[in-house]
């Protein structure tokens, strides 16, 4: 190779290096979570970085979860509820702004079904097993044991399950029976009196339209 060839080759290498460096960097794509998909109130699936979202589709359990908010709506994460299903439990012992009287779990279920959140009118309290399945290592110190990036505004407190008629610990002996709650701070399940003010995160079977939208969005198995 003579001097001219080496010179031209050097110029080509330097030029190509700079051309590559000046190129537009590729756009970043949000990663997909193996279990959760964010869903808007009108049943549109979102990528992991998009928002706002109002439900989370749980691929593992084939359920949609209500997502708590910080907007003083009926889904605000600060509201608390006594356990009541219309027959069993004690009504209106929690704290919220959206009822003239105080709140119970039935109030949240009724209002959420009325609004057909994420296309469902079958909202209910989760089973203890469903709630416990959400427990994981916190995202940061002092945060609740849940995926806070998908379930924001979850408190370090007790969340009602649908399991009623549970025997209460001795401390509540005078209250007779209660319902089971899961605590996202201690990761424990515990029985609490019905009139205890605890938090609520509802769950529902996904409506057919949502399943269709999700299956069009990315290939997943609804099992």
């Amino acid at each position, binding site marked *: *190779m003579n*001097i001219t060839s*080496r*010179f031209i080759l*050097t110029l080509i290498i330097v030029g190509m*290096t700079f051309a*590559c*460096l*000046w190129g537009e960097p590729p756009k*970043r794509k*949000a*990663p*997909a*979570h193996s279990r*959760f998909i*964010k869903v808007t109130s009108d049943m549109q699936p979102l990528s*992991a*970085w998009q*928002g*706002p979202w109002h439900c989370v589709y749980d691929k593992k359990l084939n359920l949609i979860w209500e997502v708590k*908010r*910080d*907007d*003083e709506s009926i889904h605000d994460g600060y509201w608390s509820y006594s356990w009541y299903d219309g027959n069993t439990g004690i009504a209106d012992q929690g704290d919220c702004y959206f009822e003239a009287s105080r709140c119970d779990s039935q109030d949240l279920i009724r209002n959420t079904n009325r609004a057909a959140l994420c296309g469902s009118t079958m909202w209910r309290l989760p089973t203890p097993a469903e709630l416990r399945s959400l427990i994981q*290592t916190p*995202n*940061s*110190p*002092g*945060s609740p044991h849940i*995926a*806070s*990036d*998908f379930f924001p505004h979850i408190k370090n407190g007790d969340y009602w399950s649908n399991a009623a008629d549970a025997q209460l610990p001795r401390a509540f002996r005078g209250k007779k029976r209660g319902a089971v709650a899961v605590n996202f701070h201690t990761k424990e399940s515990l029985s609490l009196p019905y009139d205890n003010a605890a938090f609520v995160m509802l769950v529902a079977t996904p409506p057919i339209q949502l399943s269709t939208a999700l299956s069009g969005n990315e290939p997943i198995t609804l099992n």
Partner: protein
Amino acid sequence: MRRSSFAIFHLMAVVVILFGLITGPRLAIINHDFLAFLSPLLPQGAILSTHVLSGCVLTLIAIAFAFVSLRNPFYGTPSKFDKLINWFGYISIILAIITGWLLWLSPQSLGLIVHGICAAAIMVYLLLHGVKHIVYKGKRVLSVLIPRNALVLLSCCVALVYCSGLGVQYFMLTQHLRLEIAPLSEHSFLEIDGLGDEPEWSRAKPVTLTTFGGANFTDGSSEVEIKALSNHSETFFLIRWQDPTQSLSHLPLEKTAAGWQVQEDGFYRFDERTYYEDKFAIMLSTTCELGGDGTVHYGDTPLNDKPQNWHGKGYHASTDGRVRDLWHWKALRTNDMYLADDNFVGAAKKVALGERRYTAGYQADGKESGAYVMNWRWYSPDTVTPKRLPIPTAEETPNKVLDWFSSTVYTPQSDSAKIGEQLPSVLYRSNRFEGDRADVRARGRWQDGYWTLELVRKHQTNSALDVDLQSGVCMWVSAFDHAQIAHTRHHRAIQLRYML
């Protein structure tokens, strides 16, 4: 000097200079966005120590070369062009070494600029000198570059110079600034008010240092003066730093024809440098290594298996399993809480896939309650929906922070704001943190181009996320002039020495 000896010096200098030249621009990207295009070519991670080591080794090579050349110079047969560019190279290298040491001894933004220009000149020299020889000599350049007949001598020289460089670096790194913490009587009471006007402060010996490389400061620098007093249970700090402007704006929301918009200039990539409040950060560690005790990792993806950051600057994280304490005072968000945000730098945290921002080891201590929150339901660079609106009052000057009890929930019907009106982005849900995050009381005041900040913390907080205050602990400080992450810095650690 024999040709083989010259070749040994030449080869060692080439290797060390190349290390310096690939690590230097990575450090410079922190301040100079226009260099970001070089990022794919540059190494990432905790590279400051590599850069400093290359400077130490190059200094030794230069001294040894000058000594040997004076006694027994090497006579080559360079052309006029070679002579000219060689002198250009020698001068650039000598200036780079001198400015590098000046940056260590007395960091100044001007020194940083001259050091960068010298590095650019060395690159030009390498191109002219190296490319010319490669083009003219082809493969034969290797036989000139590598002294094959003196490989044993070369190995010995490399080992000697490398070990000596490590020794120089070790000596440098033990030259900490000392902050003597004067004793304070149990009967003396200091008010955390940002004034520092109690007579006890006159007994505290100040440490003054220049921090550099911050956005918006004059020349990127801010001179910081630190005093400290201690009784048996608490240490008080009085810190004063230059900041020409008092900035209390934090991403305000502005009503536009399209709706409410967040005023920003870089917030989307988490590097806001215009619509942000002033801040000050203090890091504490039981060790005093270079690069913020080894917690600074440069680059857009400096940590294995962790996401790329959005600003390309780097992450803070500890890689030795230990926690560094970080107190983060914020002129708008925490000043009226009379607190600094008690944070820490720990191991890089687990990735939360649903969050666009990842902060690696930089995290907040846990809290039991209390917080400020952003006054938007979901951030978008286009338009946002506020959470709350201020309740109209007779006061003409709106607060920079929205209090819960002086605001009401946002509804489109209640939104009577005119186009151009602004709304605070910071909403206090309560008036202070409670718990581990509230360990550091602090209050700052700005006057005549200076912030004065008083802080106090117990020596032991019994938190695994805090560092106990005791002799030997090292601290680093950073000032932020209405910038989210573009803070000033300094390399020499400040070591605490309790006089009590």
